[in-house]
């Protein structure tokens, strides 16, 4: 019955695979106040440890796993594991978070963060049981799927272990392989290949300690209010806990045929409606400490397998964007991607791009060796997914991932590649939602992305969940996107940085109400400040919270500066046919105006897009400026490759 207390119970575990050494380091109150936890800790570690322009698959790269500040506590939805690295997909910061129980277990074992460096000579896994940490042989595990890996580790260490690790895609250095937690929770595309390059198959953890807030009563009272809020919310009860992110199929316009037509609710074909997916559902599940249960558990009659979390993203990317409407086939593909450990969005979008290039004659039929790239061919796609995970035949090219794949076919192909900084997220007109979509993709510190601030900027789902709460947030100073899109986006980015650092889920409802604890009662970041104070015993004001998120965001921008990111990489991409029009040209001009305003308000140099020294010094991180002023960084053009 050992309990721990203090500002943040755990320590940092540094695992050097080259030397086979493990070191533990304490976390100071100062670090917690400045970087909060999770993403904040990870981004700082990456900036401090990873040099500019290295091959992400070389031993010099660092893999950071951070549980958020509130992991393991009763504050709901706060046990997401944040995973960060220099991404082999993009060559810039690659981070993301995964659910499951790993982050809570890690906290119960007494750790805040794991940092993995170097490369083991032979396959290894790490086993953690409270204070004991061991690097063990994983030769028997190499080659197993993520599900088999978890089963193997449960057999070896007992059912309580929680596992983060990779499947065959990570081992085969597929550039968008992910870290998989407890079989089904996927996070941080690209990170899987980094595990693979380090010869690290998995980390299994059992934690049996407790977590004790500095002011237990105060913390518990507030956390319980937050649970009650979700337990009583009609939207959550009647929609969210029933169909999870499938509600996006009705609300979020899933794209059809490689981003050629977004589908409205009326246009949604049979097979892709929430009720069609529900036919495969046998139950619902969630991550540790979450009252929402956004995840379906599905059963596939044709293969006899169970899977979970067929999210909106997998359905649009593997399904509608490839014109596939066979429900069970889509679920099967989703399950395959989980078992191999691959990101569904880059997988689906890269295959859809291949189909388009084939249709346009840019990709010839020869290399396909009889494979079909017809729109809507589900069986063919199942084959392609397997070939990608094992880098077989044409799959070897798909495994390079979106922009790297397009580059293999030259400028003609790149013209159809709608990436920002190497990452795919479709294309949108600048005028759409007052410039927010395109701007948010451009300013995201991990490349084009929907979970870096965008939906928060225009209260996408908050409006449906609790309109009164939105009004209270506006009164408390949240910028209104209709008048001030740039200000609204910066606030959205802060909300997401905060959630990722606290370990709080933001990915399912994409809303303020979910991402920022108690925002409905103490807007905008006051509730978070109160919770942080009660939990850590360190005094936090709302300004401290905002400053921490800005410190983290600018550190990430600076990390990307070291990887060669320049202002030109904040661009917006259109399909060539549209790009040639006057309408598009006017929109591009508007986009750059918004980018300039954004850089100015973020305290960056408008010419170079580098964070300004004064801004960094004001946030107490002048050392970041020293490093980015030190030398010229060669311009980014995708990930560096040391070895051919």
């Amino acid at each position: 019955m050992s309990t721990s207390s203090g500002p943040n119970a755990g320590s940092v575990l540094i695992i050097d695979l080259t030397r086979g050494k493990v070191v533990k380091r304490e976390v100071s109150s100062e670090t917690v106040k400045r970087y909060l936890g999770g993403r904040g800790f990870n981004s700082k570690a990456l900036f401090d440890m990873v040099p500019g322009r290295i091959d992400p698959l070389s031993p010099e790269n660092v893999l950071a796993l951070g549980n958020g500040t509130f992991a393991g506590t009763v504050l709901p939805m706060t046990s997401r594991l944040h995973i960060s690295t220099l991404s082999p997909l993009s060559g810039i910061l690659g981070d993301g978070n995964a659910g499951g129980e790993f982050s809570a277990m890690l906290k119960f074992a007494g750790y805040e963060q794991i940092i993995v460096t170097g490369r083991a000579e032979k396959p290894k896994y790490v086993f953690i049981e409270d204070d004991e940490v061991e690097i063990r042989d994983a030769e028997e595990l190499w080659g197993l799927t993520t599900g088999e890996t978890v089963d193997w580790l449960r057999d070896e260490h007992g059912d309580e272990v929680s596992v983060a690790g990779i499947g065959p895609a990570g081992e085969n250095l597929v550039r968008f392989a992910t870290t998989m937690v407890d079989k089904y929770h996927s996070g941080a595309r690209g990170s899987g290949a980094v595990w693979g390059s380090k010869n690290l198959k998995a980390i299994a953890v059992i934690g049996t300690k407790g977590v004790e807030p500095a002011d237990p009563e105060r913390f518990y009272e507030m956390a319980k209010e937050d649970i009650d809020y979700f337990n009583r919310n009609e939207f959550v009860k009647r929609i969210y806990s029933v169909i999870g992110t499938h509600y996006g199929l009705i609300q979020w316009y899933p794209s059809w045929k490689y981003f050629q037509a977004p589908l409205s609710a009326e246009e949604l074909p049979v097979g892709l409606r929430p009720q069609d997916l529900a036919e495969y559902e046998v139950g619902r599940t969630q991550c540790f400490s979450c009252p929402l249960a956004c995840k379906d558990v599905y059963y596939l009659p044709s293969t006899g397998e169970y899977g979970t979390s067929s999210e909106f993203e997998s359905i649009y990317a593997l399904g509608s964007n490839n014109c596939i409407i066979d429900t069970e086939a889509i679920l099967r593909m989703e399950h395959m991607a989980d078992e191999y450990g691959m990101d569904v969005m880059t997988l689906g979008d890269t295959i859809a791009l291949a189909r388009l290039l084939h249709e346009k004659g840019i990709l010839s039929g020869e290399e396909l060796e009889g494979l079909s790239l017809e729109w809507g061919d589900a069986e063919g796609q199942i084959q392609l997914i397997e070939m990608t995970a094992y880098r077989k035949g044409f799959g070897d090219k798909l495994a390079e991932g979106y922009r790297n794949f397009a580059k293999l076919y030259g400028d003609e192909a790149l013209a159809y590649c709608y990436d920002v900084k190497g990452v795919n997220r479709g294309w949108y007109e600048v005028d759409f939602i007052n410039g927010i979509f395109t701007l948010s993709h451009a300013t995201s510190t991990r490349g084009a992305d929907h979970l870096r601030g965008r939906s928060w900027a225009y209260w996408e789902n908050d409006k449906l969940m609790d309109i009164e709460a939105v009004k209270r947030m506006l009164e408390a100073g949240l910028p209104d996107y209709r008048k001030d899109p740039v200000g609204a986006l910066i606030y959205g980015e802060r909300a997401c940085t905060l959630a990722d650092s606290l370990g709080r889920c933001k990915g399912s409802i994409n809303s303020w109400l979910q991402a920022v604890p108690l925002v409905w009662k103490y807007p905008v970041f006051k509730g978070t400040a109160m919770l942080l104070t009660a939990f850590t015993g360190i005094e936090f004001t709302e300004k401290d919270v905002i400053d921490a998120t800005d410190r983290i965001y600018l550190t990430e921008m600076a990390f990307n500066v070291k990887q060669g990111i320049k202002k030109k990489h904040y661009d917006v991409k259109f399909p060539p046919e549209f790009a040639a029009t006057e309408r598009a040209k006017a929109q591009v001009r508007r986009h750059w105006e918004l980018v300039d305003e954004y850089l100015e308000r973020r305290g960056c140099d408008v010419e170079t897009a580098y964070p300004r020294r004064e801004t960094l010094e004001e946030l107490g991180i002048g050392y970041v400026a020293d490093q980015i002023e030190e030398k010229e960084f060669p311009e980014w053009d995708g990930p560096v490759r040391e070895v051919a």
Partner: protein
Amino acid sequence: MFVLAVIYENCTGCHLCELACSFKHHGVFDLSLSRITILTKPEVQTSVQVYCLQCQDAACERVCPVDAISRDKNGAYIINYDRCIGCRECAYACPFGAISFEVEARPIKCDLCEGEPECAAVCPHDAIVYMEEKKAARELKKAKAAGVAYGLYGGKETSEHPRKKAEEAVEYLLELVEKSGELDI
């Protein structure tokens, strides 16, 4: 008489009840200090709550060599730690594994939180309810009936139940969307 009843079918395995229980009794979030234990296998959607059923004729009470266990006014079997000698007989005798122990410490079990069960207060899915016994029995019957419809028992093929629930969710969503169009913020 009020009873604490669990409805296995409703439990999604979020562990909030365990965190709340350990906090209420020890001021700390610690799964091993919770009087209720959630065993989960998320991939096949089985979560089972292991907890004290406050039996009519309780094995723990019977085997205790120093009569440290007795029933309080809420019907909860309570361990009197002034008498308890820490032998763990009660834990071994409980047919449900509902009593936890550590060798150095005293056994712990559910005390119904003096009539205000914290686990039931936080459970998001009505998987733990604390209600008048007849009402609880009725709730249980309803949940079991839904479970049968859900295809939880006897075969893996799914049924119309999730589809219907999804259809209702979509309908409600469209309603909300329409309403939100009129809202001017």
